[in-house]
């Protein structure tokens, strides 16, 4: 997180705000709700309170405008610049301006006013931009659900105003996972048309063979309708599909697009109803089978017939000696099966039925 130069902040904890005009994209009450909800986010973790004014000058004046809108800091039409705000201070200080040329919504269909307002109000309270892609104060827009503030945002705002003396029990999202953390474990891994996607918490890393550094991206910013956490994933190159599992649901991707008709229940694959989530999934292109791992057992799904093979579930420990009885993720690459468990990655030879090498999990991210 960062603050503005000279760490500008309000000298009082009792702040006022006023909504000067409204966007025609939403009902007035929806705008009021979005702003109030955004202010409450910050109030939940600091001792700040916000009182609404209907006339006169408030500390935080909120308005919608197009192009040049009175502050010599013009907007640019649809997309790109969505809004801006001024750090705490007299006059224009603390004011928040939204670009009226955007399409403001209360869901994920266009730019969600609540998310942008929460970010801008962060500036109005003294927060600068964060370099943490999971933080609300990261400068680029991404749609997300749940409690918007990350630990990074909370640390930043509490450095200015201190913590809320009456904690509300909300839990900030953890900071984004660090790529080269030696203790890194992962949730899922899959190929996608020659790239590799590594899922961890709310994020995924995208590894392109020609890019030395992986990109870290919020799952929600690519697929707003997907869950915040992926349990397992695999690619079936023959069908040009990636299947993503989260809880009892699964989604199919064609490229980056979700295939129509999904999500479906994982039980459609033939898994018993008692299974509520998968730990890992991997497609072996040489055999056409997909292995689905859950707790200490695994199942074999025949992609050609669309049925589970008989004789399953079988014990992971017995059939894959050396990797333990439970795994976090799996992927088939270069003729090897790679199993991930905690901070270790096991290179397993499918033909020799033995572990070839043990590497750190972060080695998949070029660490």
């Amino acid at each position, binding site marked *: 997180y960062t603050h503005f*130069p000279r760490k500008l902040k309000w000298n009082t904890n009792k702040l006022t705000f006023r909504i000067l005009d409204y966007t025609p994209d939403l009902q007035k009450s929806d705008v009021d709700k979005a702003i109030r909800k955004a202010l409450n986010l910050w109030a939940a973790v600091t001792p700040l309170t916000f009182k609404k004014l209907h006339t006169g000058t408030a500390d935080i004046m909120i308005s919608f405008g197009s192009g040049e809108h009175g502050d010599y800091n013009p907007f640019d039409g649809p997309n790109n610049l969505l809004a801006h705000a001024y750090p705490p201070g007299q006059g224009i200080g603390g004011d928040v301006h939204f670009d009226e040329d955007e399409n403001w919504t209360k869901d994920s269909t266009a730019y969600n006013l609540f998310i942008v307002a929460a970010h801008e109000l962060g500036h109005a309270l003294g927060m600068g931009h964060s*370099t943490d892609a999971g933080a609300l104060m990261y400068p680029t*827009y991404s749609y997300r659900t749940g409690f918007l503030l990350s630990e990074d945002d909370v640390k930043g705002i509490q450095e200015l105003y201190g913590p809320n003396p009456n904690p509300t029990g909300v839990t900030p999202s953890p900071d984004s996972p660090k790529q080269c953390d030696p203790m890194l474990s992962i949730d899922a891994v899959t190929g996608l048309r020659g790239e590799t996607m590594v899922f961890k918490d709310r994020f995924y890393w995208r590894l392109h063979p020609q890019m030395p550094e992986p990109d870290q991206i919020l799952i929600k910013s690519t697929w707003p309708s997907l869950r915040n956490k992926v349990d397992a994933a695999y690619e079936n190159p023959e069908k040009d599909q990636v299947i993503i599992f989260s809880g009892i649901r699964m989604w199919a991707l064609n490229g980056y697009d979700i295939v129509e008709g999904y999500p479906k229940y994982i039980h459609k694959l033939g898994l018993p109803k008692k299974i509520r989530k998968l730990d890992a999934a991997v497609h072996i292109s040489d055999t056409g089978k997909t292995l689905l791992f859950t707790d200490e057992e695994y199942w074999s799904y025949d992609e050609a017939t669309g049925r589970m093979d008989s004789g399953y579930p079988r014990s992971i420990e017995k059939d894959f000696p050396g990797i333990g009885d439970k795994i976090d993720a799996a992927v088939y690459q270069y003729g090897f099966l790679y199993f991930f468990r905690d901070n270790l990655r096991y290179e397993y030879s499918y033909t020799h039925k033995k572990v070839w090498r043990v590497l750190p999990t972060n080695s998949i991210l070029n660490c």
Partner: protein
Amino acid sequence: LPLPADDTDTWLLAEKYLRRFYGLPVGLQGSRKAAGDFQKTIKQMQRFFKLKVTGSLNEETVEVMKQARCGVPDVGE
């Protein structure tokens, strides 16, 4: 020779972006100082977004510059 239209557009987008969000000073295009400033500022932006720091306008960097974002600068006043 003039740059192809696509490259010119990308260059202008980058210049505008770096001026607005990273305080790239206004200077004469093509001068040695301006080229140095541009490279230094682009590196600053790449570091901020945790991209590969090359100082050049690669595809990955342009992709970030095209994303919808907040109008408050990432660094400086």
